[in-house]
């Protein structure tokens, strides 16, 4: 689950991390009121108007604007709220902006030189430990830093039994070349960041940029937090932060029915049990000359009801020209799945696209008989290759 910037910053602040402060707004009026408060607090006129969507690259899409006075706040907030924000990380259609964050402009003039860093905490799968990844080259995407200046990316691995140690924080501060008052602030920042990551069971905390302000504060200007979905059961407060408007409604519907669904751009829908086999089925569709329209794992306990729901979800996609059902029955009995398909056919009414059903494993033969006896226009296969050949035939 992803959090918005404003939510991430609340969590960071709670754990002692200094952030570029701001107030979230849902309307232009709220934005202007928020800007007044921020102006009083900072004694400066400038504020930043930031679109709150679950995607990076917001600035590039025109979702982050500087406003020099309240009139400009009104104008920029009006333009950003409700816009379809297209960034390198969104789909071509972009994402609708429902909320904006009215933030202090932290790039004010002062005695010290402004510096931007990159700092994130995430799992290193190869060592099964969390690492702090950081760079002096903040402000641009980490992928770009990795491409241009890979030697300027550093990592610090955290022993899970010990947590982040002081010497590790010092190492990071020295490598980032922070000095004077900023040095102490950086140590505090790092401790707070790790505390946040750990206490919320995050999968990623990414701060880019981390700002060394002209008065040597260390601030999180932006904040991206992704939570470990498997750990949400112990964080009802975080679960309450879920923003369903940011998620694809079909994905949400699938999730509510315990179906694992990812929409793709192709023309052959698929319904499979098991994630690995589901991915392999998508690959087979492509090999056969089609393009997969989705990933859909019905799980290890697929019953007739869930199969029917899965059909409904696949059929919502107007691009789907055929559906391949690929079930390897283990604990799941193929004849029960077949019954689900027959029931779905009857209750949905007229399914307008051809269906190829490949049922293998437990009770596969009974399943094939059941489908053939039903009189439905379903192409039935037992071997995987037969199914692939049928896909080729139908997409041609």
């Amino acid at each position, binding site marked *: 689950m992803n959090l918005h910037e404003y939510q991430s910053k609340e969590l960071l602040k709670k754990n002692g991390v200094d952030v570029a402060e701001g107030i979230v707004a849902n309307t232009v009026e709220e934005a202007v009121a928020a800007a007044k408060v921020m102006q009083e607090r900072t004694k400066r006129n400038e504020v930043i108007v930031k679109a709150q969507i679950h995607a990076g690259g917001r600035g590039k899409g025109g979702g982050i604007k500087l406003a020099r006075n309240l009139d400009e706040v009104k104008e920029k907030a009006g333009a950003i709220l409700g816009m379809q924000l297209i960034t390198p*990380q969104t789909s071509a259609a972009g994402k609708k902006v429902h909320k904006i964050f009215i933030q202090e402009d932290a790039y004010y003039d002062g005695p010290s030189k402004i510096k931007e860093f990159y700092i994130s905490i995430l*799992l290193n*799968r*190869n060592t*099964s*430990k*969390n690492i702090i990844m950081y760079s002096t080259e903040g402000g641009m995407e980490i*992928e770009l830093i*990795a491409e241009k200046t890979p030697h300027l990316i550093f990592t610090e691995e955290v*022993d*899970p*039994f010990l947590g982040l140690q002081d010497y590790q924080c010092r190492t990071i501060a020295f490598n980032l070349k922070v000095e004077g008052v900023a040095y102490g602030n950086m140590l505090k920042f790092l401790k707070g960041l790790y505390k946040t990551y*750990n206490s919320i*069971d995050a*999968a990623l905390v990414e701060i880019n940029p981390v700002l060394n302000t002209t008065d040597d504060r260390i601030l999180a200007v932006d904040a991206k937090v992704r939570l*470990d*979905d*498997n*750990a949400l*059961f*112990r964080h009802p407060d975080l679960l309450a932060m879920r923003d369903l408007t940011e998620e694809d409604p079909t994905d949400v519907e699938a999730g509510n029915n315990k179906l*694992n669904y*990812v929409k*793709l751009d*192709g023309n052959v829908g698929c319904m*499979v*049990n*098991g*994630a*690995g*086999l*589901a*991915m*392999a089925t*998508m*690959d*087979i*569709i*492509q*090999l056969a000359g089609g*393009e*997969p329209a989705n*990933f859909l*794992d019905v799980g*290890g306990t697929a019953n007739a009801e869930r199969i029917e729901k899965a059909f409904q979800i696949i059929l919502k996609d107007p691009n789907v020209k055929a559906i391949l059902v690929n079930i*390897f*029955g*283990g*604990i799941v009995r193929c004849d029960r799945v077949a019954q689900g398909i027959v029931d779905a056919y009857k209750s949905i009414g007229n399914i307008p696209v051809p269906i190829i059903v490949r049922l*293998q*494993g*437990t009770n596969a033969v009974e399943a094939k008989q059941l489908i053939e006896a039903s009189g439905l226009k379903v192409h039935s296969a037992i*071997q*995987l*290759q037969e199914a*692939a050949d049928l896909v080729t035939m139908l997409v041609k």
Partner: protein
Amino acid sequence: MSVLLNKDSRVLVQGFTGSEGTFHATQMIDYGTNVVGGVTPRKGGSRHLDRPVFDMVAEAVEKTKADTSIIFVPPAFAADSIMEAATAGIKLIVCISEGIPVNDMILVKRYLSDKDCRLIGPNCPGIITPGEAKVGIMPAFIHQKGKIGVVSRSGTLTYEAVDQLTKTGLGQTTAIGIGGDPIIGTTMLDAIKLFMADPATEGIVMIGEIGGGMEAEAAYWIKEHGTKPVVGFIAGRTAPKGRTMGHAGAIIGGKADTADAKIEILTHCNIAVVDSPATIGEKMKSLL
């Protein structure tokens, strides 16, 4: 011969009396697995499936001399169960539970790092040595005692490969589902090393998918030390970047995570990579 599991393995079921534990323990017993008992806290002293139930793993190990354990407890408590089994001296821990928090698994991995035990999973179908023992949830009837070792990150895709190996008459020495999570106990390389060292295993099937560096790690080792033919399949060529494909571990972050990158490395390391999982069995047959 086989790896890790045989007819003499003495198996304990953690989460024995729950519905999943009961269902799969029954199937394991029917297959001939030597299930010596189970653990369900506060049900100790009773009997279930004609076997003793214990409160604690340590007590069960003492009384039954169990050396293997399979875990069916809910994800919120599974990490704790793994550590209990390891502390009690279980040598092979198979964790079926799906959805364990990553931070819990980080602690488990750290805790197991100096223990004399092996974890398979979590979020896996388990391990089977056909004709001898099954410690998992895979459909037993598709397996056949034979000469191929199978290691896979995916459950149903393992069944697919196993089924083909059975139909081509090659059979399996042992099939191991290592699990689809970002942090797992036994890695692909661990399993490959075991199969390479097992005299009865004549060929190896490795099934990977997008995400992580496990397949590449195994492939480079095979290139240096491999002595048997290896057939590989990598699922997810058509998977989009940045979306988790069912398994928590199946996500394309960087370029090295993609199926194409992995296929290239495997091919470079002399592994026979098949385009379609439908041809795993045939391919292996052609190499022996």
